[in-house]
């Protein structure tokens, strides 16, 4: 698929809301998935997996991500996840948003994988990021290499359809009444 970033963000936001995140959390999730896609990471797939897996809050990368973001200014101290985190790549954009607030990069340790995250880039060293890692986050003096961003996202169709299914839960079934009243047809529109 060939998608614009606005399409990705809107779909991620709606899908997250459809999966019972709050509207405010869903807004952050939309931005997070967009951030990943702009850096060539298949954020849609990570989100689809987490929405399907419905992890316990202590294993949820989104809950951890929001915790990091909301406590950005305390990240001189190390923040450790409460459990092993599924789809840990989803933590990276939240760390990027937190990094923008404190104007310092953050270091994420996920098992044997180390990630340095700045407002607009990340760099992985050690082993690749693995599902179900315990994560530690703290501010760091190191900076990731600059990254070029891409302008389009190309998730698999099945991934997009998974997000679509969740997004659909936010839509009200159409009724004739809503068709007529809800959108406000009135005087003829064919003249």
């Amino acid at each position, binding site marked *: 698929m060939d998608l614009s970033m606005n399409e990705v963000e809107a779909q991620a936001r709606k899908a997250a809301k459809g999966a019972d995140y709050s509207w405010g*959390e869903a807004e952050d999730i939309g931005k997070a998935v967009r951030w990943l896609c702009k850096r060539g990471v298949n954020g849609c797939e990570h989100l689809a997996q987490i929405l399907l897996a419905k992890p316990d809050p202590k294993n949820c990368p989104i809950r951890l991500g929001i915790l990091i973001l909301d406590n950005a200014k305390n990240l001189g101290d190390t923040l450790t996840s409460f459990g092993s985190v599924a789809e840990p790549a989803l933590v990276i954009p939240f760390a990027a948003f937190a990094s923008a607030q404190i104007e310092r990069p953050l270091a994420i340790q996920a098992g044997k994988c180390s990630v340095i995250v700045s407002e607009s880039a990340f760099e992985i060293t050690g082993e690749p990021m693995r599902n179900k890692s315990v994560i530690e986050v703290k501010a760091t003096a190191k900076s990731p290499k600059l990254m070029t961003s891409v302008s389009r996202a190309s998730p698999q169709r099945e991934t997009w359809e998974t997000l679509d299914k969740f997004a659909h839960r*936010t839509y009200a079934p159409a009724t004739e009444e809503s068709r007529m009243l809800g959108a406000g*047809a009135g005087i003829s529109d064919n003249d």
Partner: protein
Amino acid sequence: MNDLSPLIPRRDPNVVMRLSRLGSLHQSRLSFMRILMRRMASEDWTFSRPEFDIDEIGVGYAVYSAKTPNRSYSLVAFAHDLPPEDRSDRVIANAWDATFTLFDGVPTRDDIQRLSENVPVQEAGRITEKELTMSRANRSVRLWEHVVEQLSNGQQPDLEQIQQVGYLMRTTAVYGSGKFGAADRETIEDRSEFKAPFQVEMLTVYLIRTFVKDLVEHMARAKGGNAAAPLSSDIAKQLGIGNSTGLGMAPFLINHPILFSNWIMVREEAISRVRSVAQASKEEIALFLSLFDRCRHSIDQWTSEHPIQKERLSKLKSDIASIVTRLDAQDFDVAYPWDSILKWAAETLSEEGQEFLNSLVLEPYAQLVDGLSSCMSDHFERSFHIDGAIPVENVRQLITDTFGWALSVDWTAQPENARAWYVSEEKLEPRLGERFEEPIAKYEQPLAPARDAAAAFGALKPYAKDAPISAFLADHPHFRHTIRRAQMSALAPYSEIRDNTISAELLPIDMLRAKLSFFGAIHFDPRSDRWVRICMFSGAPYPADLTAENADFWIYPEVA
């Protein structure tokens, strides 16, 4: 030289951000259409029609090209033969008289082929990063047939009918910003021509207007052969492009609080700068008075069948009479003449009349006003993210500042809570329903910021004043969007509509008009409480006639 730091402050958001006032806004020299026209003229853009391949029943395609100093853009237009029963302005339509896309550059054969398979079906198709917008338009059946008939006989159309309708086609959607696969705004916002908001959409509509004129003349020739006449340039100039806008536009203002605040703040800043002008020059006064005369003509042509707009129009017309009397008596030699007029207006006129004058006084002051157009976009991605360290007390204060009025509203009372905004499964369009009559509450969109702010304010009470807001958010994730908005309001004083957006009394057309006035629309004609017709580019010079002299005040018709 006028002092650039205004003495007279911007108006209070509590005055400006009421729905009835937002629903009375008028276009100004900061409107997006007018920004585009000035730029096209000052940069000497050139226009051409590389292709026009349309048959005698009006089916085919055409390409219109606009060349800036650095780039070119091409409107690719598809003309269709639409059975009358399929013609609808509603978003639920699936066929149109004409469909369009604005291509970034010059399209190849393959591009045209690809677009011909996608653009005519609109939402059911896909466009790519090479396309900046996608849109469609329907004929005004009455006027179209009349104009083709007259021209085919070598006659000009009846002026009264032209003025009554105002356009030959009306667009029913102009999609940009990554919709249906189009290029994201962030990929083009660094181009100087697209710095101001909605410039690609305005360029699309401007080129559509030329296509529509060419098409109607083409159809007249197909019918009348050599006997056919082209449209007289005077009549052609009066024709704009209509637009039919429904609820889809209303949530935009709530969903883009910083952007909306920037639009309003820029206009308020412009007004305060002009009010702070100590002495008006003879030329400035003469220009203002002549444009006022031209406005009177345009307002006379503005009609509506809708009872609310009819009443507003009758007030506006009586306001115009009061303004005439006032201007006759006005001593323009007094200090701060514009401030004195606007103070009088605020005490005397209806909101329609006040906002009409607030826009009009900006006209003689290009040097004070036009530069502000570069501040109307939203480049502050960072302000989206919540700062969790801000103390609870500060957030409560921000809510009080913006939504103080909402804290005493009884949000459980049915009339205050009567409506809910939702998105329909059918066409994914926003709709407004009756919360207590339809099963829609569980699908409610977060478009009632005042209600949510009042609830969050209550929920914040048990928290220590100096506790970080992150502690509250950890317990109350469902207030996250409200806390975000409150924090944004610290940077964006005009971000929030200071009225109940779910009350039984809500008129969504007020929200539509606020947005459309910034586009530069005129002659608002509500067709119900939730959709409105307008006219765009009426009076504008066509590409071949565009000069620096006529790029600015075209929106005010010349008085014969």
